[in-house]
Structure formats: C-alpha cells, structure tokens
C-alpha cells in the first residue's frame, strides 16, 4: 500500500509540475514585476552615475535574457548536463536513486531569486528537457538524463523567436525609465532647462539603444522618443529658417559684413554701409524766436 501510494504521488507530481509550469510561463506579469523591482533596487542609490549603472544593468540583464543563434543558455544547460551526468555516473551508478532524490524539488517551484536560473528553467522546460533543481544546488541545473536534452529540435527555433520577443522587455524597461526618470536624473534639481531635458532623455535612451544594439536586440529608438527627437530637430531647423527669413526681410548686414565693409568695399569703391541718418530735423515745426536787437537793448 505504501509503495502504491508513493507511485501515485510520483504520477501526480509531474502533472502538478506541468500545471505550475504552465502557470509560470503564462504569468509574465510576475516576471515583469520582478525585473522592475530589481531595476529599482539596483538603480536607485547611485544617482551620479546613472547612465553607467543603467547600462551595466541592462547589459547584465540582456545577457541573462537573451539567447542568440543556437542559444547560450542551451549551451550552458548542456554543459551542466554533461557535468551532472559525469557526477552521477562516478558518484552513484544507480541513476534511479538520483532521480528520486531530485524529483521532489522538480521544476520552477523551487526557483530562486536568480533570474537567469528562472529563465533557464523556463527555457529548458520549453525544450522538453526534464529539469530538476535541488535546494542544495541553488542556481545550478541538473537533468535526469542527457538523452532528453537532445530530444527536441523544432522547439529551439520557436524558443529563439520567443526570446527575440525581448522587445517586450525593452518596452518594460522604457516604461520603467519613464516612470523613474525623475529619480535617475532630476532635471529640476540640476537646474536643467526644460528645452534641454529632452536632450538628456534622448541621450539616456540612445545609450540604452546602443547597449541593446550591441546585442542585436534593438535597431531603432522607441517610436515615441523618435518622434520627440524629430520634433526637436525640426524646431531647431525652423529657428534657423526664421533667422534667415528675418535677415532677408530686414536686409540687415551681418556683423562680419559690417566689420569687413570699411576696408574691402572702400578698396572696391563700393558705398560703405552706414547707419541710417534721420532726414527729419528734430527742430522741425518749432518756429524760431525772433529777437530784435533793438528790443534787447531797450530791455537792458
């Protein structure tokens, strides 16, 4: 009876595990919240080196999340599988015992706070590999059998596509930056003019984009920011156009033209540019007082 109940438990555990795994895969919001909190904790203290910290964080985050080509995570998983298979073969020839030892801590239920482990677990499970994580081996992965790792080939392509959907993470991070931008760079505290704030935002995001671009994840700025940048460029160009139009309409010589006018134009025989002189007499309209010398003498 005891053995039968144990077998039932063993049968029920994979089913429960699959349910939990599906829930974990579907529950993207939990992961999003985790990343957001992680970013908030990491980014809040050093305000002076915001960009550097943010870039380092994003690089590290990208390394954890991003799988390119055949997949670095998959390689790491395979490496660990080989190592674990060697260990199991050398330490205990009875692989069934090791399976029993690892089975109760199956899957994502025992996932740690390390996001890479969580992600690897998800990915490995999507590949169809049987993943076991023991509490003693926090952050390490081991598989019950190496033949199960090489089983799926088609899902790897799907996996690659799903991970390239890291654009979602860019959106998450962008929202995070927009929400915490005041904490990262406080323009008001630094006395930055509103017109210059956009430059800082653009620079910050360009750094982000550059860090992602290195990883091949992002080739352009977010649409909203790209439009803001375009508007600023157009505004600058409009200012210069207005300068041109104003000068054309007023027909005013530039300072350099005025400065160089005395020598060159005199040599060329051209008329020098002069400041306008009023042709209207300031005394116009005032009748001169006629003083007769005789009256003057009589008054004396």
């Amino acid at each position, binding site marked *: 009876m005891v053995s039968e109940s144990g077998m039932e438990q063993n049968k029920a555990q994979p089913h429960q595990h699959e349910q939990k795994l599906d829930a974990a895969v579907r529950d993207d919001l939990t992961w999003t919240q985790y990343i957001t909190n992680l970013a908030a904790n990491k980014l809040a203290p050093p305000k002076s080196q915001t960009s550097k910290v943010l870039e380092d964080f994003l690089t590290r985050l990208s390394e954890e999340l991003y799988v390119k080509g055949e997949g670095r995570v998959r390689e790491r998983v395979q490496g660990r599988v080989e190592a674990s298979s060697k260990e199991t073969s050398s330490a205990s020839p009875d692989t069934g015992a090791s399976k029993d030892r690892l089975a109760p801590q199956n899957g994502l239920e025992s996932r740690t706070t390390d996001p890479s482990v969580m992600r690897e677990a998800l990915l490995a499970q999507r590949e169809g590999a049987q993943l076991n994580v023991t509490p003693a081996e926090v952050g390490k992965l081991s598989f019950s059998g190496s033949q199960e790792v090489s089983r799926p080939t088609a899902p790897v392509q799907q996996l690659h596509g799903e991970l390239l959907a890291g654009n979602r993470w860019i959106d998450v991070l962008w929202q995070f930056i927009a929400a915490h931008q005041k904490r990262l760079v406080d323009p008001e505290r630094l006395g930055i003019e509103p017109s210059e704030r956009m430059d800082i935002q653009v620079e910050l995001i360009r750094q982000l984009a550059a860090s992602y671009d290195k990883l091949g994840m992002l080739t352009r700025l977010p649409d909203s920011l790209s439009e803001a940048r375009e508007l600023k460029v157009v505004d600058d160009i409009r200012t210069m156009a*207005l300068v041109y*139009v104003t000068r054309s309409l007023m027909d005013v010589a530039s300072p350099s033209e005025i400065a160089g006018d005395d020598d060159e134009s005199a040599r060329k025989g051209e008329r020098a540019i002069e400041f306008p002189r009023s042709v209207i007499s300031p005394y116009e309209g005032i009748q001169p007082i006629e003083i007769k010398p005789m009256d003057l003498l009589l008054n004396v």
Partner: protein
Amino acid sequence: MFPVLNRYDEVFQIEMDGWCFGITNYPGELSAQVVHRIIRLLASSFQTAIEHNVVFDILDLASKFSVAARCLVHEQEIAYSIIAQLPNPANLHEDQQCVLGLVIDKVEQKYPGVLETFYKRWQIGAREAA
C-alpha cells in the same frame, strides 16, 4: 498667366530658402523622416502660394531640399512628398485650379503618372469629405 498677388512669390522664395538654409546648417544628424516632416509643415505655405497664383517649380524645390539634406532623400521622393501636401483641387477656385495644374504639369513632364496617382487620391479625399 495669372498675376501673382501681393508679391507672394518673393515671400515664398525666401521662406523656402530659409528652410533649406536651416536644413543645410543644422549641425546634428538628419534623417529622412525629418525632411518629410518639414515638407508636411510646409503644406500651408504651398496652399497659400497657389492661392496667390504663384506657380512654383516643384522640381527645383525638391532638388534644393535634397541637396540641403545632403542627398539623404532623393529629389523625386521629395517632389512626390510636396505634391502630396498640395491642396485638393476640389477645394480651390477655378483660377487656383489652373495654377495647381501648372505647378503639377512640370512634375508630370519629368515623372509621368504623377497626376493620375494624385488625382485618385484627391477623388478619394473629396468623396470622404462629402
């Protein structure tokens, strides 16, 4: 030929030169989107020019913008973009429609099919407005 009203041709010329001056002397990085955005901004200027009977040369204007933008956008693309900003003939008077026809005719001679393309577009716009 229709007489130009209020010497608007000079104003239009200065304005376009001003924008080309701004684009040429902009120290930062330009993009095709910026050029097209500027042309969209000039829609009201094009309309005013036509309303003042100014037959401006779109090809010359497109060439100027293209050179100012360091040949980032081809002049044909700019010419089409400018035509796209022209007012719908259905909303213009008869004289203004003639001016618009003269303006587009120069482009049609160089790039045949332009008028047909935009005629369909204007018809759709007129239908939607109705």
